[in-house]
């Protein structure tokens, strides 16, 4: 039942950057890897959505990319999380927990 629920689509989209940063934090990734990694999760997104987002995050300084020669075709582009990106990821993690805690508190019987 992944992603069939359009109801929460805005929520997922808002968290997409968070998800990308988290995925990227494990090392350097080819853009296609990220698509594959997210496929089958709640954050599954096609290239059409992810590529512009990656390039935007790079412009914002959260990601950095480097070119590497490949056996076939032109050089490949790999993304890496920058320091600013790591810092942002930290903030997001903290904030996410806060949100989670707040929601739990709100739901707890007084």
């Amino acid at each position, binding site marked *: 039942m992944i992603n069939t629920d359009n109801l929460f689509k805005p929520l997922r*989209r808002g968290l997409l950057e968070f998800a990308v940063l988290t995925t990227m934090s494990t090392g350097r990734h080819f*853009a296609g890897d990220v698509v594959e990694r997210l496929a089958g999760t709640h954050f599954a997104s096609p290239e*059409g959505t992810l*590529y*512009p*987002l990656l390039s935007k995050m790079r*412009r914002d300084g959260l990601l950095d990319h480097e070119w590497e020669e490949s056996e076939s075709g*032109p050089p*490949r582009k790999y993304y890496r999380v920058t320091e600013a990106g790591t810092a942002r990821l930290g903030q997001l993690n903290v904030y996410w927990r806060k949100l989670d805690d707040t929601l739990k508190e709100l739901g707890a019987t007084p």
Partner: protein
Amino acid sequence: MNRVTLINLAGRALYVEDDGVRAIERWMEAARGTLEDDPDRDELLADFEQAIADRCAALTDDNAEVVTTADVEEMLEALGLVEPADAIDSGSVEEGAAAAFESRMRERRLYRLTGDGEGMIAGVCAGLAAYINVDVTVVRVVTVIAALISLGAVALIYGAMALIVPAASSPDERMAVRGYGESASDVMSRARANAGPALASVGLALREMGRVLANVIYWTLVLAIWAVLVAGTIAVISLFVDSEPLATAFDKGTSTWTIAIWVSSAFWLAAGVLIALAAGSRQLVAPSQRRNLGPAAVAVWFVVMTAAAISFITIPVASSTQARDLLDGDGRIEIFGETWCLSLEHGLERVQDADGCDHVLSNGTIAKFEDDGHTGPIEATTQRVLGVSKSGTRDAHDGPYVSAQDPFEELTNLIPRNRY
């Protein structure tokens, strides 16, 4: 059977079916449009191209030599709709952006539909009808009525469109006319659902009417196109006027326009006859002896017309400049064995013509004299005045005449054409 094109996608050579190639191009174009404001647009487009190439390569590694259109469609489906980063980043569900991409993908393009059961003449009406999603008969009827009301102007527009609008030559292009979202069967089924039996019979009547009217347009168009060709040739010929050379081919004094009309009509008539002969010869001759006379006919026509054109162009034209050059000091000019006097700088001259009538030759007047061997300044009384110019006619009794035009030009007009 589908045609295949070898394309270079991100440095990889791939065999892709033609419609698939167009689908990729369309997708890339739509992406380019959607990412218009993205500073990294070109880089992103390269990335997308890379992604497409990778997927294609994965397909061809497996089993197939050729990437089919279906493969491509599936692949593009997987790539998804291109969304500008702002839309994602802001977390809003930008349905608008996605819809814009989709509509870019499905952008309708106008083609002429010339297949069986589509166009009647050049497929312009059929193409337009598909493009605006209206029954073709309605478009045809409107076109004929418009052509009649506009006195043929619409027929000319039709002709222009037939030349400019490309004909749909593949299923992809046929789809593009209708918009990709809608297949022909979609349109048909919706039409069936909407149209009740009553409407259907009206439609049938309209269709029949349209068929008759379409025949009328066909012949109107053929005539119109012929008329346009003739008019165009006339215009070209009239560029070469002073068309005195043309006039020599006919009676002197025939108006340039009459000649131009005659010549251009003959020109296209000859072309038409030759083309008809070429076309007819294919029907008449037994299949075993059948030869295509088309190229031969065109060659003959080309040679004849080129020869005619060269002969017209190379015949000398007397221009007013030439007349000026020929004028000697005493205002006398000899052209083609006739002596003319041009009273230009000698002030008023009184001359007497053969019938004893007096003429005052003022500045700019031209008179023709029968030369008695007299030389020197104009002393016309010693010579017989045969004519005094007035608006290009020569009449000894017209009396004094002061030409308003350039006298040299007037002189050129006066020179008998049959002396060339």
